[in-house]
């Protein structure tokens, strides 16, 4: 430590290196270069003392794969490192990660303030299922920053939202909303599935808990279900008396106070010790490995996803069959400037567009594209399309569709990393059919 002249620079590993290496030490795994798949339910104790030590959290280590598993652990550390978080807990799906985050934070009688532009499954969880557990939510439009403040009640335990709302591409002003949360002494939880840490690291903008459906771009290949919650480590649970299960001796774990004992990793420790133990949505080691494979190429894929998406935006905006295009890269998108600030590496690969000719045209388009896959997923390496008005939301009338941020003419597109010319050629086939909808639907 004596080099006086040169300016000192920390040499911790950077994003692309962490994507490949973080969380794994080959020398402790028989020198295996790839992360081994620990396909096991349970782990030998050295002796009774060792067993007791593991159960009492005296030592780190694995007991039973519902609680933790070495392969899953590598994934957890890797995502924590990429997000700039202190700790992470992987789950069997994105939905279980959201559920676990809420159940770690809240109890019956509590309240959450929630963005209204969310993945449909998440809306159902907050609107219909959580009230069954005595947890109520107030929905606020993502652009209504002041609305988040007004909706906070005495029993509010957190704010939850997707950074870029689904499917309208409305962006939450995360830096401002995090200030509102912190003034109220509550954490901000952000579902950043659509961004991945390559596009945005929410902790840098004030989020406290980040959630991903790893099923999407992180795993990236449409092969495996997985989710994760990541902790920023900055939120002070002891600043008020809103979070007794974090700060007071917890009966369910030998009188442990998670906040006192684990500070910047308290939330993850509680989510694992309580949530994984009692709810059990554990990720399989094979799926964890599949996700790790995906993360190895996260930067490379996201670059291509985003450049293809921007090409598609231009193509669609100039297309005679397209009525409108929604993507944060479009200059007249209401959040264009905010997107530049929060998503400097690219604005993501989710596009919504309106097809001229309304619902019938939408149906014809979807039924005629061949390369683009018609299915209920996003964030695959392959291009995906869906027409919500005729598929997922077909029971809704015009007014209900509008409330959900949808319309009859809307097509949702998750741009893949195929050759861009092939995607456009495929869309031409779809558009041609859409211009003659009756002919096609009579075939």
């Amino acid at each position, binding site marked *: 430590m004596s080099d006086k002249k040169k300016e000192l620079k920390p040499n911790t590993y950077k994003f692309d290196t962490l994507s490949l290496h973080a969380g794994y030490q080959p020398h402790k795994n028989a020198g295996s270069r790839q992360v081994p798949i620990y396909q096991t339910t349970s782990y030998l104790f050295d002796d009774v003392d060792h067993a007791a030590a593991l159960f*009492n959290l005296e030592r780190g*280590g694995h007991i039973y794969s519902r609680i933790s598993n070495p392969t899953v652990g590598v994934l957890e550390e890797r995502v924590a490192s990429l997000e700039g*978080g202190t700790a992470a807990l992987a789950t069997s799906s994105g939905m279980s990660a959201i559920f676990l985050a809420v159940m770690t934070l809240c109890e019956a009688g509590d309240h959450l303030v929630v963005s209204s532009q969310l993945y449909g499954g998440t809306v159902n969880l907050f609107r219909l299922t959580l009230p069954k557990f005595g947890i109520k939510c107030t929905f606020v439009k993502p652009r209504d920053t002041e609305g988040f403040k007004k909706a906070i009640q005495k029993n509010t335990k957190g704010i939850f939202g997707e950074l870029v709302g689904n499917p309208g591409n409305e962006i939450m002003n995360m830096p401002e909303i995090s200030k509102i949360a912190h003034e109220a002494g509550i954490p901000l939880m952000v579902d950043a599935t659509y961004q991945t840490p390559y596009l945005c690291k929410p902790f840098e903008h004030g989020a406290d808990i980040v959630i991903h459906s790893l099923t999407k771009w992180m795993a990236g290949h449409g092969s495996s279900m997985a989710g994760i919650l990541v902790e920023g480590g900055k939120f002070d649970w002891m600043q008020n008396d809103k979070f007794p299960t974090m700060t007071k001796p917890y009966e369910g774990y030998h009188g442990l106070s998670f906040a006192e004992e684990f500070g910047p990793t308290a939330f993850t420790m509680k989510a694992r010790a309580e949530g994984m133990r009692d709810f059990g949505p554990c990720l399989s080691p094979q799926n964890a490995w599949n996700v790790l494979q995906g993360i190895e190429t996260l930067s490379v894929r996201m670059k291509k996803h985003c450049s293809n998406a921007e090409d598609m935006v231009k193509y669609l905006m100039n297309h005679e069959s397209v009525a409108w295009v929604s993507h944060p890269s479009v200059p007249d998108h209401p959040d264009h400037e905010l997107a530049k600030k929060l998503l400097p590496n690219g604005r993501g690969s989710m596009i919504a567009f309106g097809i001229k000719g309304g619902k019938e045209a939408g149906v014809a388009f979807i039924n005629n594209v061949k390369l683009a896959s018609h299915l209920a997923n996003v964030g695959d390496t392959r291009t995906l399309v869906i027409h919500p008005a005729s598929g997922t939301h077909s029971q809704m009338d015009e007014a209900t569709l509008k409330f959900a941020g949808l319309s009859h003419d809307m097509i949702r597109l998750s741009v893949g990393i195929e050759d861009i010319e092939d995607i456009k050629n495929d869309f031409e086939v779809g558009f041609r059919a859409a211009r003659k909808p009756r002919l096609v639907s009579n075939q």
Partner: protein
Amino acid sequence: MKFKVNNNEVYASTGGRPFDKKKPLIIFVHGSGLTHMTWVLQTRYFAFHGYNALAIDLPGHGLSGGESLKSIEEMADWVAAVIDAVGHKEASLVGHSQGCLVTVECTARYPNKIKTLSLMGGAGAIPMNPQLLSLAESNDPKAVDLMMDWAHGPAGHFGGHPVPGLYHINTGTMLAKSRTIQNTLGVDFRACDNYKNGFEAAKKVKCPTLSILATDDKMCPVKEGKKLASLIEGSQVDIIDNCGHMMLLEEADRVLTVLKKFITTNYPPLSS
């Protein structure tokens, strides 16, 4: 638990067991700018096995009140005052990094109070890189980033935390940033840099002593740790391969195994 020393509130983790006056006392002293949380993979074991394991937050650090103490000598007196404040006559001390300077000085000053001394990543002196010192004193977060870089060995840089799901470097960073950097790290680094009495103090240590050193420790290299140990009569040395300065987390199990053997042999627990 919370108690008072010199009218300031002190926080100490008891490792998940209530404090019990009948049990022998071990005090864990953290390194520069850090807190009691660095000891979580050692304290809980001792707390569940017949000891009072107190991982203290130094004044102005973690959950403790007051201002940070400005010299190693003051910290040494303060640790001795902690023993009195919790109603004990004697204790075993465990220190990490700056905590080694503090515990060696404390043992030299209060030979009758200290029963065993365990040093992790210790040295007789910890002169600071002037740039790092000035960054910390000017509240620059880069000081923390540099410290986290140097404090973790090559293996720790990749991760592999013993507690599933935790990531070393970011956890350490958040601990070091939990209070104002210049008031914790800045004051601590200056105290380390100013402290010159380590080798003299070491010669006065007569209790059983253990030094745990790590081959990839850049902050207190093995050579420095050995030099300190060589001045302490009968000192044991344990060297961990493939590990950096944060051995108490990077190789928590190994550290606990060595520490457990040393402390239970030389300062037995209250048998239940």
